[in-house]
């Protein structure tokens, strides 16, 4: 066995020129097991995608779950090894690139590499992505049971997990872009899983087009950055663009466009890419519609993993973002506006999953602006950001806790939907008797997201608010209000589902969905309750040095009290069935309507695309295509046909004709060579 591994290693080294850097003291076993983490789900995808529907239809879920279990164990093991044993050198968490090979080299230094980058955030993301994905896999065993395309579902889940893990591990910005697109594709496949449902088809197209549109920004940003830095590698990129007075930084600063430096432009464009995936205003329109996918998929993709890819991207590029004040401000204001905007909409929605979707958008807004405020105290070109970057840690912490409790919320919602066969809040109510476990876990998640101590969300949100407070009063106040709104709409949801009116439960009564559905709920609830006690600042910081998070209990008074206010308001309005909500909605007439219609952003998009773009750009382009382009193509075709009709007659089968052509050819050639061409 050892021999086999050694030979494989040799072949990899010699022929594929995969560099296995011996920086990890643990040796190469560790390095290859890293590769297994994304490749196992991919193997599951291939296996189930190719053979699933015919041969292993019934065991597909078990196979995929087992493969992912191995991945999860590996990544948690690696997280343990990294954080507690080998990651820290001289008191700082190091960046390792244990595996890397060059795939495509454009010029000296500029190449697309495939590698694995190990640093605190990627290790953290590996653990959380595999964990949530595993939960969703287990949950789906029951939730999707009996579905026609059960193996296909698991194949898509495997593809998604693979892409997301590849994105997280990417050591090269272009590698990240490739996996970024793969994530987009698998999300498209999963949203459109119920492909015979027109709304699902429309939703998956919308999601794909909107995120693809945003990815254009990402690509442009990559190109600008690589043009100035002369590399695509993350580490080199960061090194070159953050060293004071380096040639690359100078060129990125001095070339300006519309008053902003190339660096700022690149950062903003990359952020637009991230904003598309993370559903930031105004590219958020796809996220609520994406809820057409199966609910576990929403939990995986649209709550815990894919939508935070944008946050992850900004965090990964954080040193570069922090070199540009303009980009940081952009990130901050887009983030805080999305947070407030989504929270307002969430208060008015009646579809359980849409409420959760807007809540996700709002929470991601929190993470974004936390990133935005964390580096803004920097002076341009200054290297020293020690002591700052509190927002960075806070954003990553919130990403971590949010992934857990939002997945829990979605899975809980899935359990409710599974029970009641409807997404609409008006069909629900009084379910606490029927779904006791769901009730309790959902309550824990709601408390966590509202920021009630001692649940996970409290700690992370506290850090975000602290970072905002240190940065700017305005942002702090908006964030505070938003967090109050969060508490309100989450508990509105909670009370409307589990309290309020009693529901007439239909004859068929199949309980909560069994062990496979309850296990993830309970595990995630434990996470949502206790994840906040992890001293996150010790592990994940902007510069790798552990940071002491100072906890001011006086500071917590305001957020906690506003959260409690939100909760009690919701309780007052929705605990019992009454007409107070309607009365309030009526009194707020215009505002309520605007919120209910999501502030007409979708209509605005439709207006811009259908009325303006289609008429002014689409129609002329179509005319040009039909008449000029097609005309040219047809002309070529017709000419060829005409000529070939003529040529066809030469092939007559008449030997003597052939002989005449032959003689004519010989004489012609003779004339040419004798008289013309001497």
């Amino acid at each position: 066995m050892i021999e086999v591994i050694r030979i494989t290693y040799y072949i990899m080294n010699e022929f594929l020129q995969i560099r296995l850097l011996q920086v990890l003291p643990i040796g190469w076993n560790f390095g290859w097991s890293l590769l297994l983490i994304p490749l196992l789900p991919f193997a599951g995808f291939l296996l189930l995608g190719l053979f699933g529907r015919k041969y292993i239809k019934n065991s597909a879920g078990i196979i995929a779950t087992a493969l992912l279990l191995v991945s999860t164990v590996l990544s948690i093991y690696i997280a343990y090894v990294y954080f507690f044993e080998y990651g820290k050198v001289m008191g700082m968490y190091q960046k390792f690139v244990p595996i890397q090979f060059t795939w495509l080299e454009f010029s000296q230094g500029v190449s697309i590499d495939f590698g694995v980058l190990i640093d605190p955030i990627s290790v953290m993301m590996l653990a959380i992505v595999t964990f949530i994905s595993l939960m969703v896999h287990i949950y789906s065993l029951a939730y999707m049971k009996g579905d026609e395309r059960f193996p296909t579902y698991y194949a898509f889940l495997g593809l998604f997990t693979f892409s997301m893990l590849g994105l997280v591990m990417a050591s090269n910005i272009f590698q990240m872009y490739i996996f970024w697109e793969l994530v987009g594709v698998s999300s498209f496949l999963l949203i459109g899983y119920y492909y015979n449902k027109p709304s699902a088809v429309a939703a998956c197209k919308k999601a794909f087009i909107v995120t693809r549109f945003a990815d254009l920004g990402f690509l442009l940003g990559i190109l600008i950055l690589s043009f100035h830095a002369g590399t695509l590698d993350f580490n080199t990129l960061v090194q070159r663009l953050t060293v004071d007075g380096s040639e690359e930084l100078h060129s990125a600063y001095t070339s300006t466009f519309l008053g902003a430096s190339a660096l700022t432009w690149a950062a903003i464009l990359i952020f637009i890419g991230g904003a598309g995936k993370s559903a930031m205003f105004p590219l958020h329109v796809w996220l609520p519609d994406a809820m057409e996918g199966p609910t576990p998929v929403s939990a995986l993709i649209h709550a815990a993993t894919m939508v935070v890819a944008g946050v992850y991207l900004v965090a990964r590029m954080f040193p570069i973002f922090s070199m540009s004040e303009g980009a940081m401000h952009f990130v901050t204001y887009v983030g805080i506006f999305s947070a407030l905007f989504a929270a307002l909409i969430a208060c008015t929605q009646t579809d359980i999953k849409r409420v959760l979707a807007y809540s996700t958008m709002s929470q991601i807004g929190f993470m974004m602006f936390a990133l935005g405020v964390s580096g803004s105290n920097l002076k341009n070109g200054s290297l020293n950001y020690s002591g700052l970057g509190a927002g960075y840690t806070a954003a990553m912490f919130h990403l971590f806790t949010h992934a857990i409790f939002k997945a829990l919320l979605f899975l809980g919602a899935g359990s409710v939907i599974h029970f009641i066969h409807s997404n609409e809040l008006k069909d629900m109510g009084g379910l606490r008797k029927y779904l006791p476990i769901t009730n309790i876990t959902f309550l824990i998640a709601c408390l966590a997201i509202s920021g009630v101590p001692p649940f996970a969300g409290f700690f992370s949100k506290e850090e975000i608010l602290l970072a905002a407070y240190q940065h700017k009063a305005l942002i702090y106040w908006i964030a505070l209000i938003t967090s109050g709104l969060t508490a309100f709409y989450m508990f509105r949801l909670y009370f409307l589902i589990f309290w309020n009116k009693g529901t007439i439960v239909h004859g068929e009564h199949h309980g909560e969905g069994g062990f496979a559905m309850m296990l993830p709920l309970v595990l995630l609830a434990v996470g949502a309750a206790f994840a906040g006690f992890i001293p996150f600042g010790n592990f994940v910081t902007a510069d790798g040095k552990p940071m002491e998070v100072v906890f001011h209990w006086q500071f917590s008074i305001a957020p906690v009290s506003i959260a409690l206010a939100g909760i009690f308001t919701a309780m007052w309005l929705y605990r019992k069935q009454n007409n107070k909500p309607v009365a309030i909605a009526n009194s707020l007439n215009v505002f309520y309507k605007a919120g209910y219609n999501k502030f007409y952003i979708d209509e605005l998009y439709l207006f811009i695309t259908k009325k303006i773009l289609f008429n002014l750009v689409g129609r002329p382009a179509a005319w040009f295509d039909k008449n000029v382009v097609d005309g040219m193509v047809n002309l070529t075709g017709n000419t060829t046909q005409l000529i070939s009709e003529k040529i066809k007659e030469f092939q007559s089968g008449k030997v003597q004709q052939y002989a005449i052509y032959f003689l004519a050819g010989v004489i012609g050639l003779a004339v040419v060579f004798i008289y013309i061409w001497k």
Partner: protein
Amino acid sequence: MSGSTIIFYMLAALTLVSGILAVTTRQIFRAAIFLLFSLIGIAGLYFWMQYDFVAAVQIVVYVGGITVLIIFSIFLTQQAGELLPKQKIGRLLYSALAAFCGFALTMVQLCQHTFKTTTEQPILPTVSNIGDRMLSVEENGFALPFEVVSILLLAAMIGCIVIALRSKPTTA
């Protein structure tokens, strides 16, 4: 005008005239006979050039072999007294024009060209010289082409037999 010259012109006339008749007459048997005369004329030209061996081969192979073969195949495929079908007049004209153009081009080239002559000692084409050379494996020997041609003849013989074999009646 010496006798040799007279003989040459007579042979030339015999060759060309019977050649023309061979390709124009509408009676196929006569065409074969005119071909025979034309070939004999060429053999005569070889004699005139004192290439006795080639002339003998020409008479043996062409006059005695191929012509007889052609005449036999005429007997096999043609009804007696039947005239060959007429060709279209257009085709005739075009063919004549093409042949004439080619001929004219060749003649123009021929007249403009001067051939070098050599002063080296000529080798007489006697039968013994030819035999030595043909079976020689030295330089300027022709043993290899000789063998190749013999294999070719063998292949042609087998091929003829295969082609001419009556195909087995297919059992339906």
